[in-house]
């Protein structure tokens, strides 16, 4: 047995050992994607229902005067933006010399949280097709080994597995890409709203408005 044969056998063993985890992961990712799809449509319906009758920019003066989000705006914004606004309000009420840094920290934390939400699905765009490709190439090896021994049934079953994993992987990739595109649009829209709200509330605080009364 030459050293190269040992390498080949080792690689073949590693490759075939990966088949079960790859197939299991593809199935689990499919199930996860079903849940994610439901969640996505839930959020989509929510966003369709919660619509401001005017753009948020038209409410900025109102927000600045009140130092917080008006109730009608709260009702038409996603919960996480309303929570962000109330956290910002709490920071503005505090008498701290590092208020600006705290606001910056809160804003960046929010941005990271939004990015994290999109990254979760963006990961599947790459992982899905990669697992599909792995699931294609591993059984091809075993199939070719079967062909060498004249085992046609092993070849056909390996090929079936190879093609199906590719299809599932690509399906995961396409679906995840679609969700990523829409989610990114939502994230940018939310980020724009958050920045507008932050600007308005901070200006209210600077002018000694309601939020800054305790200063």
């Amino acid at each position, binding site marked *: 047995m030459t050293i190269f044969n040992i390498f080949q056998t080792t690689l073949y063993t590693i490759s075939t050992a990966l088949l079960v985890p790859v197939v299991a992961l593809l199935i689990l990712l499919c199930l996860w994607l*079903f849940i994610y799809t439901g969640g996505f449509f839930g959020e989509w319906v929510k966003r369709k229902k919660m*619509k401001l009758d005017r753009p948020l920019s038209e409410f900025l003066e109102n927000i600045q005067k009140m130092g917080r989000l008006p109730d009608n705006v709260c009702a038409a914004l996603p919960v996480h933006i309303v929570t962000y606004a109330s956290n910002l309000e709490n920071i503005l009420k505090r008498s701290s010399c590092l208020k600006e840094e705290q606001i910056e920290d809160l804003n960046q934390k929010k941005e990271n949280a939004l990015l994290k939400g999109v990254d979760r699905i963006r990961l599947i765009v790459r992982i899905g097709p990669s697992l599909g490709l792995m699931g294609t190439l591993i059984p091809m090896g075993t199939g070719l080994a079967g062909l060498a021994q004249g085992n046609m049934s092993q070849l056909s079953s390996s090929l079936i597995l190879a093609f199906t994993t590719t299809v599932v992987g690509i399906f995961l990739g396409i679906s995840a890409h679609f969700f990523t595109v829409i989610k990114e649009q939502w994230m940018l829209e939310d980020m724009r709203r958050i920045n507008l709200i932050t600007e308005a509330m901070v200006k209210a605080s600077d002018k000694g408005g309601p939020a800054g009364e305790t200063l």
Partner: protein
Amino acid sequence: MIKQLWMSGILAAFLVFGIKIGVGLGSQMNHPAISKRKKWAFFAGSVLTYLLLFLGIHFLVTGLNLLDYLDRLANVLKYGMILHFILAAGLLAWGIRLLIQTPASHQHAQLKAVLLLITPCPVCATVILLNLTLAFSLFPLAPAMTTAVLFACFLGFILITLLVITLFANWIQSMDTFLGICMVLVSLYFVLTILVAPIYPEIKAAFAMAGSNNPIGHIQGKPLVLLAGTAFVFGCVGFYRSYFSKADQP
């Protein structure tokens, strides 16, 4: 039974007419300019009309031997096609009118347009008649039970369409424009069926030839149903978590 219903084309026919009526009812039920009482009266009236139509056809099929009247029935069908074409032309004209009118005139409900969409035309009635006749010969159920099952299916399609339109009512900016688009689409479908109907036997042969070697036929039903069921259940879990969650999650 569902498979037989589908294979015989009964479900497909009811699906088309169910969607057509559902769209008409949906645009009326979600119109902001109509009072709730009028909406429900209109809905109940429409359902009752179709129930009476089903019952009437049921008694016609069970009480008469239709084979004795086959020649007359063929004549009715021939004229039915002309009426069908007139209805399609009416739908198209009204649909275009709704689409090109100014938004200011969208404030009042287009009752005539809706009526045109939900009125049981001669072809609808003939379809129900033929489907009932076919179903009586296909199913072991009692005729009255068969009629009830078919009416339930028909009503189910109407209600599902109505539910979908209600869910997306916020998304639809103008109910009249939506109704106009639907009327144009339904009329185009009707015109298409008129054009396709005479060459149907040839289509059937071509379809059988194409269907003999298609990969869809090799799909096993049970695993597919299991997958669809799993996707639906998991999707509902995700939807519930997202839609009803009060958590601070982006």
